[in-house]
């Protein structure tokens, strides 16, 4: 290893990148349901990151609210409206 990192540091580098990738997916995907799932994945990764940053309280809250309820509300809204994003 050039950078000489231990496991925790690698996780601190990899997880934020994954979070950003998931958020980019959430914005880019045309299918809104898929975007909602991407938001859920982002929330789950975020909650993992919170756990690694020594915040288990927030991690539980984020997993319960961010990953579960937010997705449920988003899916309800998508069912009530329209699934696909229109093109320009």
């Amino acid at each position, binding site marked *: 290893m050039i950078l000489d990192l231990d496991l925790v540091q690698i996780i601190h*580098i990899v997880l934020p990148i994954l979070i950003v990738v998931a958020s*980019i997916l959430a914005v880019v995907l045309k299918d809104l349901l898929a975007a909602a799932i991407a*938001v859920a994945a982002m929330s789950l990764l975020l909650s993992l990151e919170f756990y690694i940053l020594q915040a288990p309280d927030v991690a539980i809250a984020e997993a319960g609210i*961010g990953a579960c309820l*937010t997705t449920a509300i988003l899916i309800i809204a998508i069912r009530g409206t329209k699934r696909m994003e229109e093109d320009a």
Partner: protein
Amino acid sequence: MIYNIPYIAVAALILIGLYAVVFKRNLIKMVIGITLIESGVNLFLITLGYREGSIAPIYTSSPGGIMALPVPQALTLTSIVIGVAVLALMLSLVIHIYRHYGTLDARKIGGNEE
């Protein structure tokens, strides 16, 4: 410098969210963008409270050693609940807008009015 990657991720999250709000036309995409901004701010608060080699600020789990800062975690808890409340209200308004206008395109619903 490599240690500041979480902060860069925070900036990236906020900017991606802002991008979704400014450049996307679908209302639900804009709402998702606001959720992303909120996640970014939450991550920022938690990252501020992290101390290297620290344990979670709970005495039950392990004794001794330095602890992560508790106040940002408390603030983040508040912020998460606020986020879900705002999200619910926004999405119920979006459902109503769809019923009235039959579309989710932000350009079509506002319209140019006198």
